[in-house]
């Protein structure tokens, strides 16, 4: 259904986790793929040296490693803009899709598809984290440094995490994806404690910029399956791209959302306009010379990252918000990494700070 089945061209296995069950399971899945045991991840990185496009080569190689740092981190957000207070579960990093605008192209120190095999540590850290806060509510997701479901048929993180969160009253899991890999979610016990979210874009943007990702229609069909399976659904229009004719194309996507999913099931819809770390521009120009996204009117924001000229993004947010609210005024729309000024200009109100936005989002999904 749209997404190709992933098969790495080479697998690197960190020696210290080679006998863990998760590692064995993955190696059994691809018995004919060459395997190299490495004493540390850097050896796998070194193997990419000399590749004409190490980023593309990294997407074809899988590193099975040990997560030595914390599995759970705060979303780093960005200076001077309002963040939503999200927590990231880093069970895997990198992605087999190849979106032109993807910040991972310039962000990851290990540019290979990497999955961490010490899942017992992950679960122990989750137990500890979720029992540490007093009356705190947490929104956690696996889709920040990877696509939550793109490689899930191989990794099986959803099968591990969705039932785990089913009995948690102080947290919700969000699985963010562009793919249609929801088959494994269908029979899981989720108890409404998992939001499955889709990153959406205008169809011409999908075709031109989201290489390897399925069309919007297929994503929405997958969303409908999850909605029918009782999951709460989220949508993220991020990054919105400014181009001649964007209004009609984005409006069509908004229409399609409400043809596929009952507004009552929508936990939230976020809007974020194109922005990226300054160093990504050169990577986009080099790796994706056909892409025109860097030709927009982008200027350094208060965090130094190029983002659209403020009136452009304000107008985009306002339009999208209006179209969404025409279908259901109760759908919660929020802006990702935007200033108080833009919130007020585009949506007519502002949470003012991260704490309030975080609380408002929590309220949407608290039991």
């Amino acid at each position, binding site marked *: 259904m749209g997404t190709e089945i992933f098969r790495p061209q080479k697998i690197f296995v960190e020696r210290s986790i080679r006998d863990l069950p998760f590692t064995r399971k993955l190696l059994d899945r691809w018995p004919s793929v060459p395997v190299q045991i490495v004493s540390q991840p850097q050896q796998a990185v070194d193997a990419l040296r000399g590749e004409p496009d190490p980023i593309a080569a990294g997407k074809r190689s899988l590193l099975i490693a040990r997560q030595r740092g914390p599995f759970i981190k705060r979303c780093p957000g960005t200076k001077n803009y309002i963040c939503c207070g999200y927590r990231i579960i880093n069970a895997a990093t990198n992605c087999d899709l190849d979106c032109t605008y993807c910040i991972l192209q310039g962000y990851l120190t290990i540019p290979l598809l990497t999955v961490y095999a010490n899942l017992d540590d992950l679960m122990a850290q989750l137990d500890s984290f979720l029992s540490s806060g007093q009356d705190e509510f947490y929104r956690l997701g696996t889709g920040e440094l990877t696509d939550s479901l793109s490689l899930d048929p191989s990794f099986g993180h959803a099968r591990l995490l969705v039932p785990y969160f089913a009995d948690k009253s102080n947290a919700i899991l969000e699985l963010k994806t562009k793919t249609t890999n929801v088959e494994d979610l269908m029979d899981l016990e989720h108890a409404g404690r998992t939001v499955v979210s889709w990153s959406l874009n205008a169809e011409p943007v999908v075709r031109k910029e989201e290489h390897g990702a399925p069309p919007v229609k297929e994503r929405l069909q997958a969303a409908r399956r999850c909605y029918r399976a009782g999951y709460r659904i989220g949508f993220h229009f991020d990054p919105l791209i400014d181009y001649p004719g964007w209004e009609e194309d984005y409006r069509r996507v908004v229409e399609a959302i409400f043809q596929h999913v009952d507004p009552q099931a929508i936990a939230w819809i976020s809007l974020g306009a194109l922005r990226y770390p300054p160093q990504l521009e050169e990577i986009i120009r080099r790796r994706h010379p056909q892409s025109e996204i860097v030709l927009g009117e982008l200027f350094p924001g208060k965090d130094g990252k190029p983002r659209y*000229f403020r*009136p452009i993004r304000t107008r985009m947010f306002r339009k999208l918000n209006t179209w969404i609210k025409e279908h259901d005024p109760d759908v919660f729309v929020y802006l990702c990494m935007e200033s108080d000024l833009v919130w007020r200009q585009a949506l007519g109100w502002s949470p003012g700070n991260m704490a309030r936005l975080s609380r408002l989002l929590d309220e949407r999904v608290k039991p």
Partner: protein
Amino acid sequence: MSASSEQKKGPIMPMQLPEIPLEAVDLRDRTLVITYAPELQSLRESIARVGIQQPPILQKIPRSGRYRIVCGYKRLLVLEALGFEKVIAHLASAENELKLFLRGLHENLGTRSLNVVEKSLALDKLAGQFRLSREEMLKDHLPALGLGSDPKTLDLYLSLARLEEPIKQDLAAGKISIATAQQLLTLSPEDRLAFGKLLTALVLGKNRQREFLSLLRDLSLKGKTSINELLGDPQITSLVQDPQVQVPIRAKRVRELLIRRRYPRLSRAADEFEEIKKKLRLPAHLSLTASPFFEGQDYRLTITFRSREQLAAAQKALAAMAESSALAELLEITFRDQE
């Protein structure tokens, strides 16, 4: 400057070296020559005054009976220009050509700095003419030219050798930076030459070269047209060639036009802001600025004064500004959308 009849026979040398008729030296044979766009004036003056101190090295080509230059290209050019008939020269023994080439190259390296194009030509000859392996080039010859041992540097210099002559001349003369030349390699030959002409006409510094090229490249991608066509636009050509205006002003105007086309919506907002500023009629010692790229809603007002009277005048101007309808306009533009 004239050479005496004694000098026309060639310089007096302490060693017994053969005297070669200059017309027997093939100055067009650049098989072993890497010298590019040489500056000859000071050498010309020196040779005219005291003759040649270091004889060139020549190789006799048995088939034609003529001589090929191994080392001393500039000296021979000067001798020819000064009307010398003969030159005293070392004759290279029948070594293989690579050895002769390296001899000439290292003699050059020992006595002067090679320009970028000369380094690229040297590497190009080693790779193409002498078919040296990439490994040899990276291990021995790139470092000898002071270029380190990075394969990317080797690739860059090999590419530079294939640039068009006018671009190479600007590169050798330092009018085009290596960074710009590297960018130019991604363009078509027509676009490169058109940009080269623009650089020559506007005498741009290195940072401006990069900026102009970036603007032109983006405009060409946006407009699905070539840089060559863009630069043929009558509005741009009239600014580039305006005889009434000094070159730096021409460059400034072309830059402004390119920025306007690349960032039309920011430019409109900036124009509107300037219009409102005019309506506010601020005195010269009050300066008003918007937040960078209008990202925020804050405005900054700076007062410059050196006397009580000036401060009082500023206070008065501020009071008038606070009551002005133009101020309402100014505050309103923060909240305006753009199509």
